[in-house]
């Protein structure tokens, strides 16, 4: 256990910066996707729920970017990191940038992500050599626990619902399942961070994720599709065509009015 050692931030460590950037970008991009539901959700309660969870993810991203700015030590702020990079410099996984689709697609994406991030943050809080990161993780884990419950309940309701809802839920799962593998891969930077004890090995958390998904699918009467062409590339900055559109909106204010502040 790393807790016995000094738990310091890995200042000036490029691999650590890059590994944590992957997680920060996942939170920012999914948080932005959820914000797109604001005013469009199927009910007022769900509108509030999705905005609330989008805000959780943005809050987690902010804390991570601020911490990353300190690790990098070049004076970049959380806003610089969130708004002033090019598409190829974002290293989020492809799953989180996928378009919202219908409510079933959004719930499938939420389930896949939260079922991974809740145990991931729990492991970061327990084992990371970086005390500040462990603090961010302890908070985020509590939030991902209710994101998981919310998504899991909806996937079960829709999968085990009407003919129409079941067909849409199965279609959502069929569409997104191929993007889930990327969450468990270790980029070279991530492998270094794992070896250094900064981050837990996401791959080792895969069995727990699979059990969670299997439990939900069994109750929802859904079938996990066989993945023939697993999709990846986001960690290398290779994104789908929707990412550019997402960034155009996300970055609009800073591009149109550079340096604009509240």
């Amino acid at each position, binding site marked *: 256990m790393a807790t016995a050692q000094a738990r310091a931030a890995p200042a000036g460590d490029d691999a650590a910066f890059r590994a944590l950037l992957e997680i920060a970008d996942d939170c920012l991009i999914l948080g932005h996707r959820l914000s797109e539901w604001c005013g469009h959700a199927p009910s007022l*309660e*769900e509108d*509030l*729920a999705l905005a*609330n*969870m989008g*805000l*959780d*993810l*943005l*809050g*987690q991203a*902010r*804390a991570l970017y601020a911490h990353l700015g300190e690790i990098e030590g070049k004076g970049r702020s959380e806003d610089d990191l969130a708004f002033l990079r090019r598409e190829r410099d974002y290293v989020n996984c492809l799953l989180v940038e996928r378009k919202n689709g219908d409510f079933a697609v959004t719930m499938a994406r939420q389930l896949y992500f939260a079922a991974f991030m*809740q145990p991931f943050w*729990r492991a970061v809080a327990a084992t990371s050599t970086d*005390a*500040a990161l*462990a*603090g*961010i993780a*302890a*908070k*985020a*884990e*509590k*939030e991902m*626990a*209710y994101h*998981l*419950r*919310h998504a*899991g*309940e909806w996937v*079960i309701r829709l999968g085990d619902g009407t003919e129409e809802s079941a067909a849409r839920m199965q279609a959502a799962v069929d569409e997104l399942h191929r993007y889930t593998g990327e969450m468990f891969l270790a980029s070279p930077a991530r492998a270094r961070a794992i070896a250094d004890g900064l981050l837990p090995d996401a791959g080792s958390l895969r069995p727990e994720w699979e059990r969670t998904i299997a439990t*939900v699918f069994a*109750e929802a009467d859904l079938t996990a599709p066989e993945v023939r062409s697993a999709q990846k590339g986001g960690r290398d900055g290779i994104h789908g065509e929707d990412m550019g559109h997402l960034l155009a909106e996300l970055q609009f204010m800073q591009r149109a009015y550079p340096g604009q502040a509240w």
Partner: protein
Amino acid sequence: MTNVTDAALARALKVAGSVPDPEVPCVTIADLGILRGVERDAAGAIVVRLTPTYSGCPAVIAIEMAVEAALLDAGVEARVERVITPAWTTDWITREGREKLRAYGIAPPVGASGGRRAFFSEDTIACPRCGSARTTKVSEFGSTACKAHYRCDACFEPFDYFKCI
């Protein structure tokens, strides 16, 4: 909470602790457990430590500014610092804070915080108005990040429940 050993420190604690929460003004930040401590740093300056409730809580900056303004008004020289470890939990809401919430019409958190809960699990939340346990959850996501939306099936009033986290 910190042991208060000098008058200025005691005053800083009293002033900071009296600041109401901007979204739930019936309780103070001390009642909610957001105020983590007031102490002197190595150089002798007074530091007021605050912690956010949720990662994305939009009230964090408003609370920090309100505390700074209250300290300034009271003529107490102190700086405000944000701490995130250990993570805030509703377990830190004081007994008095829970009673204030109930009197205000918000059901206080039930039980102790824990990790993952089962899908579709429901706690019994008593109506803060009539006390009936016959209530229904409308949505786990209410008017603020920290509250869920419930309806009482006895007196038919809607109410907020301060979620256990």
